[in-house]
């Protein structure tokens, strides 16, 4: 997560854990996660900004000197239209990867909030663990770090303007990526 050089009026300590702003953002993240876990994708997509960029880079194992291994090629590289298409597809009843649907839990921890470059934007990072099971299958798990840019549109109301999903696995040990993060 990049530091925010232009705090634009929101001092760093106003974003710290325990502040009202931090609590408001945490509440938004939890509500959003509940929508995903409850298969309420129609309501979830309303939380995405029109200019959203939703991306999950492919990760490779690299020697230490070459950095964390996030590549230019991605598992997801989405805009609002492609996300809406994904949601509409899930609602057709013939998207077999999610019909019957997966059962997921989105766990979010280690939430850090920083002021963004605009006074209404916040860079929000969190660790995630997403568990998924379908039919009688064993749990499939995804862990990583999510880097969001959240835009405040009303008190306690935010839109997701950017989401970068930094998954820990280089080989996704899952049937597919038919769930959202």
């Amino acid at each position, binding site marked *: 997560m990049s530091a925010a050089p232009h705090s634009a009026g929101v001092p760093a300590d106003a974003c710290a854990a325990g502040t009202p702003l931090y609590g408001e953002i945490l509440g938004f993240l939890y509500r959003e996660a509940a929508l995903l876990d409850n298969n309420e994708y129609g309501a979830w997509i309303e939380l995405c900004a029109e200019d959203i960029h939703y991306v999950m880079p492919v990760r490779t194992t690299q020697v230490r000197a070459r950095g964390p291994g996030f*590549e230019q090629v991605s598992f997801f590289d989405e805009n609002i239209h*492609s996300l809406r298409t994904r949601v509409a597809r899930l609602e057709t009843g013939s998207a077999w990867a999610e019909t019957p649907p997966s059962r997921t839990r989105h766990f979010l921890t280690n939430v850090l909030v920083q002021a963004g470059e605009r006074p209404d934007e916040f860079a929000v990072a969190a660790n995630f663990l997403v568990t998924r099971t379908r039919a009688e299958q064993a749990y499939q798990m995804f862990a990583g770090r999510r880097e969001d840019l959240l835009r405040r549109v009303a008190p306690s109301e935010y839109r997701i303007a950017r989401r970068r999903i930094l998954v820990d696995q280089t080989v996704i*040990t*899952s049937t*597919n990526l038919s769930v959202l993060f």
Partner: protein
Amino acid sequence: MANERISGKASQPGMRLASGEDLEQIVRPAEGLISRRIFADPEVYERELEQIFGRAWFFIGHESEIPERGDIVARQCGVDPVILVRDQAGVVRAFLNSCRHRGMRLCRADRDHATALRCPYHGWTYSTSGELLAASSEHHYGPGELDKAQLGLIPVARLGSYRGLVFGSWDPAAPSLEEWLGDMRWYLDIIFGRTGEIEFVGVPQIWDVECSWKFATDNFTDNFHVYWTHQSLVELGMLPSDPDFASHGHMVTLDNGHILHFVQGPPMEAFQGLGLPKSLWPRFAEHLSPAQARIAQAHGYSAGTMWPNFHWLQLVTAGDTKSEPVGILNLRLEVPLSPTRTRMYSWFAIDKAAPAGYRKTSYETYVRCFGPSGIFDQDDMENWEECTAAARGPAAKRYALHHKMGLARPTDATWAGPGIAYADSYGEMTQRAWYAEWLRRMRQPAHAPTAVQRPRVTAAS
């Protein structure tokens, strides 16, 4: 006949399975009967490892993935881990990714750049062309105990490259790459040479699926699943609502099990010329023969399998309901991890001559439609897993799958390319040809390949 039960007594001792069945009796490609046993059976899998993965030719990587001297990617040849490297002289080489001393994995990154490879265990160090440069504590070896000239990295027994695609085989007696590809080269020219050169973009997406590798290979030459498996996209208007929409084309079977399709898309400009931008169409005539250029111009979709497990998918689709269709070139490889678990590789590739805007749109559309998150692929993996899960039990294994579509269909002599061609690309001729090669390989007498040989390397471009 959907539940046709097949069984047969062993006729050759070597072909008899523990179940008492004879492989030749339960896999009858000419009749379209393929036993479910071969998809989840450890005994069959063990035989596949030796007979197929230890002996056939396998895709390792594309030369554009290692453009500079010292570039390395860690891959596999068959199921064995290999280092694919461009050495200091610019020659592309492939070695077992394992030190000659204690067998430690040498290259432990997915990609790297190095002038030499040093084993972390005892420090044995190799050049990028495989020579052992230094062992550990050399002065503690007595005379004749350390013959460094004989301790180079274990090369892939046969290595070759065609149109930048690097293939290897662990069988020193394998036919040459050119011989093995045979007439497939004519079609590879269309897919990989239509506008000049193709480049692979970045790294592959990799993911593990709980399925038999053969359900994936079967699927990549199956056109008539598209309307049904991808029904959600039909409902969204992203695929035509005519169940026959992907049938307007040809299927071709070639020697050595190679198979392919060329299919016309809807009568729209976006589906001409393999979905490439119109500005690139004049290049077909420059880079292809007239017959090849006509095929490239007239078709939108193509899928081909270089037997057994490497595929191209040349497709035209939109990535969402608001966008226009665009051409995509996707390369796929399945590497079995067990009878019922398979590692999938998916690459995006593009014409080097492609304009920047098309390059971006094609890439984004690929990510949205294919690979593990793809709105097409997601549902395919579901099928492969469920087909595999249902083939595990002793009762299921007594029954055949059904591969009879087009058994009596005549060949089409008007097709301009080499091979045996059939009009109407809904059919199971290509699957039957694939399984016939599988059976031929499984029936071959086992032989012990000779030990380490120096590689017959390809000269890099």
